[in-house]
């Protein structure tokens, strides 16, 4: 159990049965008045933000959160199958809960999966992933169109802008926080 006095940036609390993370926090206390804790919080499942002011006697449950290391196996339609690398238990996460992460997931990749009350709610990717380019228009020397980037498709189906010299069968590094090209990887 937390009280409002424990609130700070990054703290995870449970409100109305959902896990929230405090993303902004301000303490105030009018003269002779009560301590007030104004919080901006993000629902860790829906992503919705909530701004709320609490008093010092307000209490919060600790959300039942657990992070497990899992291996991504394969996907079938919108179902993504994972395996716990400790106990080999297999689980399924719906595509809608994975967000942009599906752009960077390849078979057998290891990642941290966050569970709330034994329900997977989020995955955290490595900051950088290396993916194979499966489709790229050739770079015509002397191209005078003036553009300094072109679109390519990587093995996950994700399309992004890269410099013109990137070709099919190249491996490229992508920043999973922004989805942007970082560099070409030599193997």
């Amino acid at each position, binding site marked *: 159990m937390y009280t409002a006095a424990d609130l700070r940036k990054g703290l995870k609390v449970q409100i109305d049965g959902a896990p929230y993370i405090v993303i902004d926090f*301000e303490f*105030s206390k*009018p*003269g*002779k*008045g009560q*301590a*007030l804790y*104004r919080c901006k919080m993000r629902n860790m499942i829906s992503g919705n933000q909530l701004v709320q002011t609490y008093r*010092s006697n307000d209490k919060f449950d600790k959300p039942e959160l657990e992070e497990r290391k899992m291996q991504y196996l394969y996907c079938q339609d919108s179902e993504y199958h994972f395996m716990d690398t400790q106990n080999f238990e297999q689980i399924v996460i719906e595509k809608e809960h994975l967000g942009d992460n599906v752009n960077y997931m390849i078979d057998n990749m290891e990642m941290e999966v966050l569970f709330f009350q034994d329900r997977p709610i989020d995955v955290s990717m490595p900051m950088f992933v290396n993916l194979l380019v499966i489709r790229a228009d050739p770079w015509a020397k002397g191209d005078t169109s003036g553009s300094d980037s072109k679109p390519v498709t990587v093995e996950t189906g994700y399309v992004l802008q890269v410099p013109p010299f990137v070709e099919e069968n190249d491996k490229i590094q992508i920043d999973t926080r922004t989805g942007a090209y970082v560099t070409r990887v030599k193997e």
Partner: protein
Amino acid sequence: MLDVQGLRFRAAFFHSLRSFFIAQQFIEVDTPIRQPLLIPEANIQPLTSEGAYLQASPELCMKRLLALGCDRIFQLCNCFRKGERGRLHLEEFTMLEWYRTGADYEDLMADCEQLVSSLLAELGGLVGCCKGSLDGLRPGDSGQLIAMQPPWDRLSVQAAFARFSPVSLEQALATDTFDELLVEHVEPYLGVERPLFLYDYPVALGSLARRKNGFPHLVERFELYINGIELANGFSELTDVDEQRQRFAEELRLMEKWGRQPMQMPERFLEDLAKLDRAAGIALGVDRLLMLLMGRKCIGEVVSFAPDDLG
């Protein structure tokens, strides 16, 4: 944390504060920081020290000195309040308090105007440190100029709620949302053009303040605001011993209800209070005033060591 230039400015500021009061025949007093009991205030959580309390304010001792016969006293000291930490709060902070007999809250408002004017006149020339002069104060880099010449604005709590809050003062009290509404809707607009005194609080919000003549639901209490920041809390002292005992009893009841550490009724304070007639006293957050003068955003930037700088 302050640099050398900042420390020099803080020292000059303290010197000017003291000079102002000494020039007006105030006695500087230094009362014990560690005390066996404090004034019961439900909204203040004290820090403890080996079975005693660290003072949340020097108020109790200073009023006893008034009762002893001092007519003008001031003190610059450190005070402690548990769990108060933010842009405008430190658990250990610097307080300036002054008390006068034969005076009321209007005299204290005039004191504030003269004190800050005299500080600006003395310190305004310290280029590079002070962001203001008698012509005006610019507390932020891009902030507007706050006119500092007295007289300053005066606005009753009732009128402030009517002007800035979505609900009236009466509704705020009835729904127990006074503090939230004040912080969110009222305070940001106070003292932005020139300093402002917010005055005449409901009785329940001034446990040591005297009732206003002809308005028994109000007390003669005020807060000074500059640029939306609350700087000082002053009031005409309640000197009716029976009423003060009842108000303390209410605070003690709230403390018990909220599961706070139980506190004793300050009997010797009440005994001394009986010797007092008309008096007024005020507490001013010195670090916050320094913040405004130096144009800093956070209270931790104007002290020698903020909590994060220690250890």
